[in-house]
């Protein structure tokens, strides 16, 4: 949606700015070749010169962008084979677009015509900052994914992988995960522990939150603090305490011991999310329901529960992930028979650095994404059905 008529900008502005972007890319390439400064300078000069040529000498956007795309890809190929070519092509496309975006003044198209230069700058500086934050959050997760297809048994990008040679890739670590008894056992343990722990957390947490939202409960602040303490106390302290306590009860090293421990860790998340949704809950609705002859149980399930359900579900998700990701407490409270996936990954990382861990991590990330997407879609659907948002 264009709201401002764009007009070409002077080259003296566009070329240096494009040069800065090139300098950043040059810095990355230079660092990989042990000379950051040289890379920075070359990147700046090359990109600025390119921008100058395209914008003041040869202003034919379509052709210019294709030339940039292919030239950059070739340069990448010369520097670092097939992988370099892929990165080079990506960079070429981006920088070609960037030069003309700047040169034609298209960056102003979606901003109101009255914005000052400084405001435009802040607008884009903010976007760049946000982009960088996402980059730092996502990169560590993304980088393990290609490594999990490594044909070797190390956490290393081999030369074959960088050349995009199919021989450098394999599914053997995925195969190992699905055929190795240790991993399968760990997966079934995780799958059998997490849902039960979640169910307990959600049940107890929701009830506690509802009870504590009633102003007539004595010492509610103190009780609340105690209930959410597992979230505040360092995990290793809880774990050591649970170890000795559960040992006395004969729960240490049993399935139910781990389930109970994980439920205790999950309850605070449920309490906090449900309490938050209860703030917006109108208590007169329960009185109205009672007035119409519903007993407290019916009131709860037919009136209160549907309204606080989003809080319950997100609390349950947190509780599930707490149990599914937890390694400290299970190392203490569980015995080898309750080895969960995080435990297996932990020992795997320590005793045998195998990319099977990365394959498992990739699978878990994919499952998490699917789970969150499903919940979000369900939530939207139910909101649409209830008429809360226009469908």
């Amino acid at each position, binding site marked *: 949606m264009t709201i401002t008529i764009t007009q070409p900008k002077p080259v003296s502005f566009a070329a240096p700015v494009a040069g800065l972007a090139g300098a950043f890319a040059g810095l990355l390439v230079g660092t990989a070749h042990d000379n950051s400064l040289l890379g920075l300078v070359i990147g700046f000069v090359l990109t600025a010169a390119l921008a100058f040529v395209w914008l003041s000498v040869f202003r034919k956007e379509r052709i210019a962008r294709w030339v940039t795309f292919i030239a950059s890809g070739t340069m990448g190929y010369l520097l670092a084979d097939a992988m370099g070519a892929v990165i080079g092509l990506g960079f070429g496309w981006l920088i070609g677009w960037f030069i003309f975006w700047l040169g034609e003044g298209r960056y102003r198209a979606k901003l109101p015509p009255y914005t000052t230069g400084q405001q435009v700058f802040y607008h884009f500086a903010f976007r760049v900052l946000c982009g960088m934050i996402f980059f730092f959050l996502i990169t560590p997760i993304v980088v393990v994914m290609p490594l999990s297809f490594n044909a070797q048994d190390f956490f290393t990008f081999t030369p074959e992988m960088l050349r995009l040679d199919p021989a450098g890739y394999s599914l053997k670590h995925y195969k190992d995960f699905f055929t190795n008894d240790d991993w399968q056992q760990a997966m079934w343990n995780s799958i059998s522990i997490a849902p039960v722990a979640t169910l307990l957390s959600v049940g107890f947490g929701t009830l506690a939150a509802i009870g504590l939202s009633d102003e007539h409960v004595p010492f509610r602040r103190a009780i609340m603090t105690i209930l959410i303490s597992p979230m505040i106390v360092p995990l290793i302290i809880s774990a050591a305490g649970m170890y*000795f306590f559960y040992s*006395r009860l004969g729960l240490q090293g049993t399935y139910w011991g781990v389930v109970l421990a994980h439920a205790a860790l999950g309850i605070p998340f449920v309490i906090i999310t449900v309490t938050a949704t209860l703030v917006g809950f109108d208590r007169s609705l329960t009185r109205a329901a009672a007035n119409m002859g519903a007993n407290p149980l019916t009131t709860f399930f037919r009136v209160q529960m549907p309204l606080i359900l989003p809080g319950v579900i997100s609390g349950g998700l947190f509780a599930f992930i707490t149990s599914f990701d937890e390694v400290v407490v299970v190392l203490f409270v569980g015995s080898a028979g309750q080895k969960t996936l995080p435990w297996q990954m932990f020992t795997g990382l*320590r005793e045998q650095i195998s990319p099977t861990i990365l394959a498992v991590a990739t699978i878990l990330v994919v499952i998490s994404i699917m789970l969150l997407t499903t919940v979000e879609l369900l939530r939207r659907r139910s909101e649409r059905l209830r008429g809360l948002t226009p469908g």
Partner: protein
Amino acid sequence: MKLTTTLMASTALTVAAVSAHAQDMADSLTLVSWGGAYQESQMKAYVEPYIADNPGVSVTWDESSAEAVAKLRAMDEAGNLTWDLVDVTAADAMRLCDEGLAMEVDHDEILAPAPDGTSASDDFGDMIVSDCFIPQIAYSYTFGYRNDVAEWNGQVPTEICDVFDLETFPGKRSLEKRPHNNMEWALMCDGVARDEIYDALETEEGRNRALAKLDTIKDEVVWWSSGADTPQLLADKEVVFGSTYNGRLFSLIAEQNQPVEMMWDSQAYDIDGWIIPAGLEDDKLARVLDFLYFATDTQRLADQAKYISYGPARKSSAPLVGEHAELGIDMAPHMPTSPENSVNAFVMNFEWWADYRDDLDAKFQSWLAN
């Protein structure tokens, strides 16, 4: 009629005897080991065959040998023993034995004699370093280096002091994040005679001297804490030179085909074996003893050497060591105990380390932090 009765009675007795025998033994076994290629070799050499012979038995592994001492202490305090058989180093076995956390055993009574009738205690010989310790393998801490380092100008390290020679062999090294072996190697390369090393380490002066020698390469050292670290670092070119267990280097070189070579000079021997935690219930103990008798006999220990290049602890196993189970290469030249490899080996004094470990650990860790 009478015959039938007798037959029936004897059958009943046999059945009763068999089931009584089965009832005596627990049918689950929790083994504690080191994970990785070593645990795999135990699995293949004797755990899988044992399960094949005793189909009802289930085995659970716990890869916790590295913290076995701490965990056994915690289990003892909590009065809740969840392990049945624990694989530990000789020095840890001594500590556990001293603290009463491991069971003392009579080796001749619970272990199989050699095929020629030699008693178990003679067959294991010096390897039995403690009354609680049932030796399995001799391994060594040794060095591996990358053979494609351009800066070395075609030279390769041949002796232990090359680790400290940053001029000829520049590049990062990996050393274990614990004092043992590092201190000895440092003193060795600082001119202390081999038989005086442990005397020197008992004095404050000797300890400082060892650390001063390590100071000369400290900036170039990546410290490892698990056996898998050095192979990963070498494969990744993060280091060019590093110490680890010889079996890990064998698998890096022979099984993973990495451009790495062994440097056997001044390899430090150590022994690894089982201990039975003290206080097992009778049925568990019966199962553990049954398993141990099988898993430590001459053939089984020789079989283990088909999967990993660690020397079997029994003398009678040595001639049976054959070829690698999958690669088909002769394993004998890859054993730390083979004549060529052991030319300049030194035997780590684990008795000394059992006594001094806590002191030196503290000193070493504070040196690391500075």
